[in-house]
Every structure is written in structure tokens, then in C-alpha cells.
């Protein structure tokens, strides 16, 4: 160890910071990619269970190695580029879809102080980044030179823009309650007990946020952008091999991101639901389980991920005009009324229940 430490001291300061930051990025991204891989397996298993099937069970014990088999299959498949497509944009589009969904993780706090970039305007940054993912879809639709992909791109564009407004308004509610845009401070504003989480005073906004989050990630029941009964597979109909895999990686990373944000902003992130109950947290060996920690954040994220899968297994797909109606005529009025009420509460200084 002493040798390693002296080697480390030889490295110049600037390089040291860069190496540390790179290691942190790897420490966030590797588990994220693994989580994405196992979310795909969980989705097939959970939906299989709900439909009284077994789901994948051939590769490895209980099908646990299925994601790796899928990745290997997609990696060695040929990447087909359609003859009349726009070559550069066709190859660029999957990357444009993937990058914002990974970059957003740079401002997510995993525990108090456990964040790559603790920036002031974290909430705004996230809102800006989640709105960029749609470029990948729109460009994929256009560059494929396929009618189906084009229709899907138009649908996805209109849908994401409509639901972004409701999403932004829901975030305004969180911002008013926490009094800050920094995500760590937003979580710390919810500390106290389970009753000081923002889900209680902001319940309507919580529902609006999660519903718009499902719509933003183009997941069922809002997945008209890939409605296989109408437009084959939507924007990625011309993609094969790794291009197709990148779109899926982006979609699942976005799902996990939305789940993480919902838990951070409404369910107190890493805060334990048993906070304040000292007889539990002071238990000798297992006391840490009841205390605050990253495990509670993971638990909350998995709840929302399960909801995603549950929605997919049980809800029929929305009709396009009904999606637009839900976004503009239901969710946005709900947020406006809720923010108005919250404004009065904050103005009158009703702090505990807003």
C-alpha cells in the first residue's frame, strides 16, 4: 500500500482530480448498466408471472444470465443501414438518445454528499436533460427514411413536448416546498419523519409527475411511439444489432432515472421511513437497516420500476388523442390548481403541512 500511495503522490494534481472524477463516473455508470440489464430480465419475469407464464429460464440458474446472452446476441448481429437513409444521422441518433439519459445521473445524490456534481440548479439541469432525449427518437425517425419510423418520430415529439409542461409544473411545486433547486437540499428539506416527505402535501403533483414520467419515457400505456399494432416497431424499426440495443439501453436508463427522481423529490430519497423512531435505529446489529442510507433509495427506486412493469402488463395502450387530452386537459390544470393552493399555503406560512 505504501508503494501505491507514493506512486499516487507522483501523479500531478490536475491528473489526480481527473482520475478521481473518472473513477466516480465508472462507479456510477457500471452499476447503472448492470441495473438496466437486470431490469430487462425483471420485466420479462414480472410480466411472465402476471400472465401465468415462466418467463426466461434457460440461460444460467433460473435464467439469471439471460441479459448477457441478449447483449452478446445483439453485439454480434450485423448493423444494417438502409440504402436510402441518411447514414450519419442514422448512426448518430442512438447515441443522442443514450447520452442525456446517462449524463443526468451526474447530479443525482445517492446519499448525503454522495453526488458527482453538486450543482446549484440541479432540478433545472435535469429538466433540460430529460427534454433532450427526444432528439434521438426524432432523428432516428427521420434518418431511417421509413414511413413508419417517421410517423413514430412525430408522435414521440408531440407527446414529449406536451408532457414536459406538466412535468415542469410538478417540479415547480417541489421547488416551492423545498425552497431550493439543489437535489441534496431538496432531500434534506424532507428529513424529520415519514410525514415530512413531500408526497403528502404534494400528492397530486406526485401523481402528475410519475404519470408524465411514464409518458416521457414512451412506456406503456403511453407507448404509441412504438405501437406495434399500428406502426410496426416505431422509430427503431430500421435498426438492428447495437443501434437497437442502444435505444433500449436509453429507454431503461430513463426509466430508472425517472424512478430515482420521483423517490428523491417526493419520497425523501435516502431518508429512512423509520426516521425519528430511535428505539428502532438504536437496535444493536440491524439498527443501520432502519437508519438513513443508500439502501432506502434503491428500495424506493425498485418500487417505481415495478410500477412501470405492472403498468405494462395490465393497462391497454392509450389512443393518441386521449394521450393529448390527458396531458393538456387533465394533468396541466391539476398542477396549476395545486401550485395555486401551495402558493397560498407557503404565503400563510403553514410549514409542516405546507
Amino acid at each position, binding site marked *: 500500500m505504501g508503494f501505491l500511495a507514493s506512486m499516487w503522490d507522483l501523479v500531478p494534481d490536475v491528473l489526480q482530480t481527473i482520475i478521481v472524477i473518472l473513477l466516480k463516473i465508472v462507479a456510477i455508470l457500471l452499476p447503472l448498466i448492470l441495473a438496466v440489464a437486470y431490469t430487462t430480465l425483471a420485466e420479462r419475469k414480472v410480466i411472465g408471472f402476471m400472465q401465468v407464464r415462466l418467463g426466461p429460464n434457460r440461460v444460467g440458474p433460473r435464467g439469471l444470465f439471460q441479459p448477457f446472452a441478449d447483449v452478446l446476441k445483439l453485439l454480434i448481429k450485423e448493423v444494417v443501414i438502409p440504402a436510402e437513409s441518411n447514414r450519419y444521422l442514422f448512426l448518430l441518433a442512438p447515441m443522442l438518445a443514450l447520452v442525456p439519459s446517462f449524463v443526468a445521473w451526474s447530479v443525482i445524490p445517492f446519499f448525503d454528499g454522495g453526488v458527482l456534481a453538486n450543482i*446549484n440548479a440541479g432540478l433545472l439541469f435535469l429538466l433540460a436533460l430529460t*427534454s433532450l432525449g427526444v432528439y434521438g427518437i426524432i432523428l432516428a425517425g427521420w434518418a431511417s427514411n421509413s414511413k413508419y419510423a417517421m410517423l413514430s418520430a412525430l408522435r414521440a415529439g*408531440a407527446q*414529449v413536448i406536451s408532457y414536459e409542461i406538466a412535468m415542469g409544473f410538478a417540479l415547480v411545486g417541489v421547488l416551492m416546498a423545498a425552497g431550493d433547486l439543489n437535489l441534496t437540499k431538496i432531500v434534506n428539506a424532507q428529513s424529520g419523519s415519514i410525514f415530512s416527505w413531500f408526497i403528502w402535501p404534494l400528492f397530486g403533483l406526485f401523481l402528475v409527475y410519475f404519470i408524465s414520467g411514464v409518458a416521457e419515457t414512451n412506456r406503456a400505456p403511453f407507448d404509441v411511439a412504438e405501437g406495434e399494432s399500428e406502426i410496426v416497431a416505431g422509430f427503431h424499426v430500421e435498426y438492428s444489432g447495437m443501434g437497437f440495443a442502444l435505444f433500449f439501453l436509453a429507454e431503461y436508463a430513463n426509466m430508472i432515472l425517472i424512478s430515482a427522481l420521483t423517490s428523491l423529490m417526493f419520497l425523501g430519497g435516502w431518508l429512512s421511513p423509520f426516521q425519528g423512531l430511535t428505539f428502532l435505529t438504536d437496535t444493536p446489529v440491524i439498527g443501520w437497516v432502519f437508519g438513513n442510507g443508500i439502501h432506502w433509495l434503491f428500495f424506493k427506486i425498485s418500487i417505481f420500476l415495478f410500477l412501470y412493469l405492472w403498468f405494462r402488463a395490465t393497462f391497454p395502450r392509450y389512443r393518441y388523442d386521449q394521450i393529448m387530452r390527458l396531458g393538456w386537459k387533465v394533468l396541466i390544470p391539476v398542477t396549476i390548481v395545486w401550485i395555486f393552493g401551495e402558493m397560498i399555503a407557503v404565503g400563510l406560512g403553514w410549514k409542516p403541512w405546507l
Partner: protein
Amino acid sequence: MTFVQFLFNIYAGITIAAAIGVVTVRNSVYAALCLILTFFSSAAIWILLEAEFLGIVLVLVYVGAVMVLFLFVIMMLDINREQLVERFIKYLPAGIAVAVIIAIEMIVVIQRSAFDTSEQYKAVAQNAPDYNNTEALGELLYTQYLYPFEIAAVVLLVAIIAAIMLTLRKRAVNVRSQDIEKQLRVRPEDRVRLVKMKSGQ
């Protein structure tokens, strides 16, 4: 050259190159993408100036919403190139006149500020490490500039209502159209009548 200056040069270079790309590339989708790149690098320059709120909002509003709609429209256009060239020549004199006026205006403004090294135009002092641009902007907007801010909001509202009124058209009286509320309110009892029949009839 400090690191910040180095970054500024890179972003400024990308901004200028992308802006030139917007007016020179042939494919209109590429032009829109170049414009997005321009917005992005200008946002980066703003963040270098410690104006992170403006930078992020530029990305959020222009890149995240306005340019998506732009691309939307451009993708659906089928542009006839010959007609385009014809029109380009027709409007060239007017275009040159506008460009010259803009250039003169820019030169007048820039001569005043950037190249004047007198005390009045010195570089802005660096803010303290805990300076919060978002908070500072909010405080100014809601105290000192409250009325202009609110009036600007009302002007935008008027514009929205005007745009909606322009596109609103009354449907003809006897046309059947879907009413989603009505469709959602349908119950099975209104539609299905279960009839019990005696067996063996």
C-alpha cells in the same frame, strides 16, 4: 491562457463554426442541427460567465422545446431546390441590404464595448464561491423589475391567446365528431342488454 480562457476559445469557435453552418449547409435538417449546436455552445459560454441559470434555461427552452418543434416542421417539408434557388436570387438584394445594416449596427456596438479598455468596460469581477446566479436573478426579477416582468408575461399570454384564436375553427353543425368525455363516460349497462332465455326453445 488560463483554463477558462482555453474553454472559452473552444466554445466560441464551435459557436461560430456552427452558426456559419446554419446558413451554408444545403440540407435544412442539418441546418437545424447546426442551430442546436450553436445554442448549446452559447449556453456553455454563459455558464463560463457564472450565469448558469440562463445557460440551462437556454438549453431547456430553445433546444428542448423550440427546436424540437422546428425539426418537426422541417422534417415534414418537401423542399423543391430549383424554386429555392430562383427565390434566393430574387430576394438577394433585400437580403444583402439587411445584412449590411446588421453588420454596421454590430460594428458600432462592439467598438464601444469590447475594444474599449477604459475603466468603464473592465471585465466583470469574479463572484464569491457561494454565489447563486438563480437566486440573484429571481430576487432582481421579483423586486426591482417586477412590473416589466409581469407585463412581459401578460404580453406573452396575449400572443398565445391570439395564436389559438387564429387557428380555432368552428365545426359544421351536422358533422359527427368524437367527444372523448362522452366516450369515457360510457358504462356497459347503457350498451349491453342481457337477455335470459328459457332453454329448449
